[in-house]
């Protein structure tokens, strides 16, 4: 936590909301490597904090540094290719699973097969319609899709919130494999047991009205 250039460093970050701030004067250092679990009650701003990492949300005050560089100065598409994201609800694009994996990057059939392999899906999934996958399968497809740009960081916004126990186990196993292979993960959860199981580092957020977060 004391390295000169943490993965992300939030300095007095406030994100305005419609009636109250979604994040208030939050100062947090997120270390490089492993899985950093972000916990906190509903409304604490966990998702907002995550979305600020890839500039899907921007702070109204404060700065966020990514490996020592202010994210506001980084071209958003470039940043987002290096900082991938898996959302809480799996979003399948129209078409086949292979079409989904080719959404951002031109991939050959072999590369599609390798990606499916990495997330524990059989290669035959490539031709299946993405909309027909189960929740767990769809979330694994979304993980594979996020990996197509070879991100060095992966943001995971409660990716197991809507999955059954088996699927949760599979996703957690994949997260650990990615972390062990050198990808830094930021994993949002409200599940304390999961935070204990998965987290190498912990960031606990309080409610914005309780004072500065982080």
């Amino acid at each position, binding site marked *: 936590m004391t390295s000169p250039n943490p993965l992300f460093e939030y300095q007095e970050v406030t994100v305005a909301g419609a009636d109250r701030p979604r994040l208030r004067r939050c100062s947090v250092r997120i270390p490089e490597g492993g899985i950093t679990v972000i916990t906190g009650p509903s409304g604490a701003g966990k998702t907002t904090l995550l979305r600020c990492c890839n500039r899907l949300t921007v702070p109204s005050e404060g700065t966020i540094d990514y490996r020592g560089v202010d994210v506001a100065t980084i071209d958003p598409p470039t940043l987002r290719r290096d900082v991938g994201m898996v*959302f809480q609800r799996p979003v399948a694009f129209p078409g086949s699973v292979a079409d989904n994996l080719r959404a951002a990057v031109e991939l050959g059939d072999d590369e599609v097969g390798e990606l499916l392999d990495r997330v524990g899906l059989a290669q035959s999934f490539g031709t299946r319609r993405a909309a027909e996958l189960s929740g767990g399968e769809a979330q694994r497809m979304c993980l594979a899709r996020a990996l197509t740009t070879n991100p060095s960081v992966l943001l995971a916004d409660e990716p197991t919130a809507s999955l059954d126990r088996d699927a949760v186990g599979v996703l957690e196993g994949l997260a650990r494999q990615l972390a062990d292979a050198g990808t830094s993960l930021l994993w949002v959860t409200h599940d304390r047991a999961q935070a204990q199981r998965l987290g190498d580092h912990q960031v606990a957020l309080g409610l914005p009205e309780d004072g500065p977060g982080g």
Partner: protein
Amino acid sequence: MSAAGAVMMAIAADRQTGAAPTLWGLTASGGLVAMAVAISAWRRLGVERAVLWAATRAALQLAAIGAALTLVVSPDAPLVWSWVWVLAMVFFAAVTVRRRSPEVPAAFVMGLLAFSATTLTSLAVLFGFGIFAVSPRTVVPLAGMVVGNSLSSVVLAARRTIGELRDHRDEVESRLALGLTARAAAQPQLRAAIRDALVPQVETTKSVGLVFLPGAMVGLILAGVEPADAVRVQLAVMYLILGSVAVTTTVMVLGVSTRLFTPDQRLAELPRAE
């Protein structure tokens, strides 16, 4: 005979045959309005005043427009007045777009762009290829066809753009998160918005002649023009409308979408339709 010739022939035939209703005929046609009012009263629909006001307003508006058009389309009138008229039509069409879609950002400017683009391209094709001759009698009616028939499609296109992006926000943001540009991330939704706005005109074009006889053709036939000539004029007009609707909806959707993303490639908060 050229299409322009058919138009001229129609005018001549109109003068010769007196196909335009007399004042008495026009008054008698008001009986149909009375019928609508009677139905409303009988079924207690409560729209009697609205029907009467609509019929009266239409008569007043058309009388005023007819008087103004007489000045503009007379053979002695300078062509510049026709172009001024066209500019005014484009302006008021953009005002109407803004009024009908208040939730759309910069609706007036985008409408102005869309109508200007389609008027320019459509008239360039029509006059450039000699389909119609440039004259006071052709400029205003043809531009009116372009702008008038594109109006509802433009409003629909603007509203569908916001609706598609709002309803598929998670999909768009998932694409943005993959490092796609705003335009690429929104592509499927913009395509759907253009398609939705185009479909009514495509369906109208498909059903022409089978389900309904279009106004220009009916007018020509009533004025004594041979049906074959009326068909040629009508076809040119239908193609003109189809092309202009395609141009306006595309310009509108692409234009509005630029206002719905921030410069740093984020999807803005989208308003709900009022």
